[in-house]
């Protein structure tokens, strides 16, 4: 086919031109950001004995320089909310516990049944640290908790409970021989999926107490936690179900023909393969769910997002939301990006071996 020579020249030119223009635009944006975030930024405020901080230097820089002083001043509140100031080492330690737990859990050499015990132990330790009341720790009620620990607690306890729930629901949905259980599983998934998370949270915080016998009061955080477990459970169940349906029927038959019982078959043959298929989708759901924890602000729980917002409501600090939100974005990004990386590592590590990566004999 003949191609017009002009067309060929144009094509040769267009690609570098586009690249150049894009590079210039990006460089300009980067420069502006650098100038705002570093060159003209206000890092600290003058020492000041008065009650309210003197934010005049920051006000003077508005428009061309960032005010990192707000982060410096407020980061303890953003991270830990109204938790008693002197006891804030406890939520800090709880956060470290979470991070260490996640770190251990992704190393295949720790994948053994005792890992579940470790999870239970660490989650219990987090409870002790946050509540106190034992071991000489002062008691701190859950309504004083806030910030990053809330976000991590909601997400971690939520997923730790929702994931097994999701597996059971997904299995129940495929239980041909148990029509009632199957219908219940379908009803659960469809009901939860048909309702926005916000309304679930409202129901958990407003309506649930109406149904409970008088004198019973479940903590607000626990109610939100329940709503999250139900919500995440339904979505994860659908992901797990996709993995189950992708498994060839022959795998079930071979397992049955060898005499494995239903639960042996499920645990040893079906789930290991089915979950492996859907790791990216699972992690995708985890990430979405992690960020959705920020919706608890509407029922007055001080998660990371809410403490950040609250920090900039104080008159002296009004107008410095950008800096705070950048910090929040960085924290959320750090967790979500890590999850995505873990997902990729898992996928690579768990990929079924293929002929083309045959090891030398």
């Amino acid at each position, binding site marked *: 086919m003949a191609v017009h020579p002009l067309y060929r020249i144009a094509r040769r030119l267009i690609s570098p031109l586009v690249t150049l223009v894009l590079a210039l635009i990006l460089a300009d944006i980067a420069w502006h950001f650098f100038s705002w975030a570093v060159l003209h930024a206000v890092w600290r405020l003058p020492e000041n004995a008065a009650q309210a901080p003197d934010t005049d230097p920051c006000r003077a820089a508005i428009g061309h320089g960032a005010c990192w002083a707000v982060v410096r001043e407020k980061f303890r509140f953003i991270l830990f909310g109204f938790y008693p100031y002197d006891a804030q080492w406890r939520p800090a330690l709880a956060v470290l516990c979470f991070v260490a737990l996640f770190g251990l859990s992704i190393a295949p050499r720790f994948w053994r049944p005792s890992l579940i015990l470790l999870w239970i132990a660490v989650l219990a330790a987090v409870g002790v640290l946050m509540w106190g009341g034992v071991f000489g720790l002062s008691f701190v009620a859950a309504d004083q908790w806030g910030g990053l620990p809330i976000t991590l607690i909601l997400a971690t306890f939520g997923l730790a409970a929702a994931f097994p729930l999701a597996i059971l629901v997904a299995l129940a949905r495929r239980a041909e021989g148990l029509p009632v259980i199957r219908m219940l599983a379908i009803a659960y998934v469809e009901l939860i999926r048909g309702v926005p998370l916000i309304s679930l949270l409202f129901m958990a915080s407003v309506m649930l107490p109406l149904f409970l016998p008088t004198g019973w009061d479940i903590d607000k955080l626990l109610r939100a936690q329940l709503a999250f477990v139900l919500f995440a459970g339904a979505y994860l169940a659908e992901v797990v179900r996709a993995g189950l349906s992708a498994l*060839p029927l022959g795998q079930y*038959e*071979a397992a049955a023909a*060898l005499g494995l019982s239903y639960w*042996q078959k499920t645990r040893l043959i079906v789930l290991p*393969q089915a979950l492996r298929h859907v790791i990216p989708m699972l992690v995708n759901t985890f990430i979405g769910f992690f960020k959705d924890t920020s919706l608890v602000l509407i029922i007055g729980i001080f998660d990371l997002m809410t403490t950040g917002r609250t920090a900039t409501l104080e008159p002296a600090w009004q107008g410095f939301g950008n800096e705070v939100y950048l910090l929040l974005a960085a924290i959320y990004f750090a967790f979500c990006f890590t999850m995505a990386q873990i997902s990729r590592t898992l996928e690579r590590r768990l990929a079924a071996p293929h002929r083309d990566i045959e090891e030398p004999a």
Partner: protein
Amino acid sequence: MSNPSASAPQTPAIVLEDVHKWYGRVHVLRGLSLSVAAGERIVICGPSGSGKSTMIRCINRLEHHEKGRILVEGTEISDEPRALALIRREVGMVFQSFNLFPHLSVLDNCTLAPIRVRGLARADAEARAMEYLTRVRIPEQARKYPPQLSGGQQQRVAIARALCMQPKIMLFDEPTSALDPEMVREVLDVMIELAESGMTMLCVTHEMGFARRVADRILFMDQGEIVESGAPAEIFDRPRSERLRNFLNQILHQT
């Protein structure tokens, strides 16, 4: 063919009494009756869709029959857990598409059920697995994963996996049909050896050389019925029914 255990009258390995099965309204098994003696080797052939797989799969309860009785080692099979456990223990099955567990190594494929179902210690199960992998001539592949093996190798692993449960009866459903022609031989050789060791075998296959060599009896099925049965010489050289003659013509012209 000699039958080592024919000396004393004993319960047949498998008995089918007027077995019927429907898929919805399709009547796929239409009154099968059959008795298989211990150590007997039976080859089942017939056109596609005639119900061969369905019959084999009813014998180890991968499918349910709706009418009639099936007895394995004298026990009538049903969903009753003890009967089900007995069949699954005594009957091994080899599938057309191998159905190895791709996430487990060859060795783990072979030791899984002996450990979990038979309650063997891991070391014993592994020793047994290596013994059978040696018998199917691939002990050196034990640490590999099924997707890394050729089709013929996978099918031999599948045979070893079934044998590791030390079943009394082996069912084969077209074990060589999914294989490239050059790999058929290696699988058939393993099956011939197994047949010569005295295993009770029911084998759906169109490998007529194999059938002539090992079968005590050949069943010809068509449209859910056993149309003819007899020694290989009778079936191949003196077919009585028109349907069998047509079928033999077809497979002879195919290959």
